[in-house]
């Protein structure tokens, strides 16, 4: 039995990526070669994220996160619907795994750890990333179609007409889904933090 991806009739601007993923999921050798090549973005994205956060993770830690991210991407691959470029879709899995990696490393901070490492972990960029993590995790929980609309609006800067075209709905429907998405995300934040998001 092969993995299959849910079929959908909506037009996307990333039909090529969607087709590639579908071929990978049915085990097409040539597509796997191309997919593996495209997934070189994973270490590059993680290296860039780690660098922008002030290197909270070492080379050794980051190599573990690469494997975790690849595993997550592979697990979630049948959820890819072509609404964003493959690399953009991959970003959030890399980011969330990187944050998990940082958190895991921080758990050792009560144990004997060199002073220099603690300083790295206290990078001023990390708390800001925690806020982004909260938004990304919240959107994961909100789910499609609302979370897709919110991502396309804020992460890809599409207009509602473009979002509607991408998702195969009217611009007005996209606006309504956007509002619902924001409201659901806000409710999740309220339930978790009592409304506190710095």
């Amino acid at each position: 039995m092969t993995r299959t991806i849910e079929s959908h009739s909506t037009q996307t601007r990333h039909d090529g990526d969607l087709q590639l993923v579908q071929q990978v999921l049915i085990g097409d050798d040539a597509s796997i070669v191309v997919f593996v090549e495209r997934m070189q973005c994973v270490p590059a994205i993680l290296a860039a994220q780690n660098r922008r956060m002030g290197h909270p993770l070492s080379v050794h830690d980051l190599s573990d996160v690469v494997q975790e991210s690849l595993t997550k991407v592979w697990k979630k691959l049948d959820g890819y619907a072509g609404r964003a470029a493959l690399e953009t879709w991959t970003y959030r899995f890399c980011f969330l795994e990187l944050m998990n990696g940082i958190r895991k490393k921080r758990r050792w901070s009560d144990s004997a750890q060199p002073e220099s490492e603690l300083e790295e972990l206290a990078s001023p960029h990390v708390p800001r990333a925690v806020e982004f993590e909260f938004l990304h995790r919240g959107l994961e929980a909100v789910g499609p179609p609302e979370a897709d609309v919110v991502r396309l609006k804020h992460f890809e800067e599409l207009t509602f007409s473009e979002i509607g075209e991408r998702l195969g709905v009217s611009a007005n429907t996209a606006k309504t889904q956007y509002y619902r998405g924001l409201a659901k995300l806000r409710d999740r934040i309220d339930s978790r933090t009592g409304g506190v998001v710095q």
Partner: protein
Amino acid sequence: MSERREHDEFVEAVLSGEKDPADPKVIRFLADNPEVARRVRELSELADQLDEAGREQRATLAESRELEPAEEQVAVANGLRELIANGSARAPSRAAPEPLKGQRLSLLLFAAAILAVLPFAWNAFLVAPSGDSGPSDVMLGSNPFELEVVRGEESSPSGLRWSFPLSSGGWFSLVVTDPSAGAETPTLYDIPRYTGHEWKPSEHLPSVIRVELEALDASGEIERAWAGELSVPD
């Protein structure tokens, strides 16, 4: 149209840009409806945060495209090929795929050989402080949280309770995993922000759980952390 629906549509129109917040009519409506004004303010702030997260994502992706990886290509290729070949990492709810025709054994052997040199390959590419390797896997010491498992009532799952004075604006991070699953250790719950001192799972927990609990201050810095395994009463 109900008043609630009318207000929702008004907020939607402001957030989507159909209505200009600087329009005197809009300003007057918001002044007359403080609850709607609060909703607009809250969701606008959230939209601003999402904009910032979006800018960060685009900047990071642009930066990643400028990196020119070399040796790590082999590591990624084989890490992925191993996943594809053995199929062990697939979501449990999904049907397992057939192995790739004629490739499974050779891929696994190739992957095993390459994975053995993976850490060395990475050193050549990733930009990071030198000379720091990860600490060994240690369990933290005593329980600073006085954490305990609270037996659930009949047909209700057991939960956790802890006592730790959270600083102003701080929160807890709670991760619950199932240690019986061996190396896979699936995450049952991952709650990045939590301000309560008692937590109830939505489903029954396994007999032994691994709990990782952190107390963080308002800036996201960890104040205390504890990790360990706990027995859950039937």
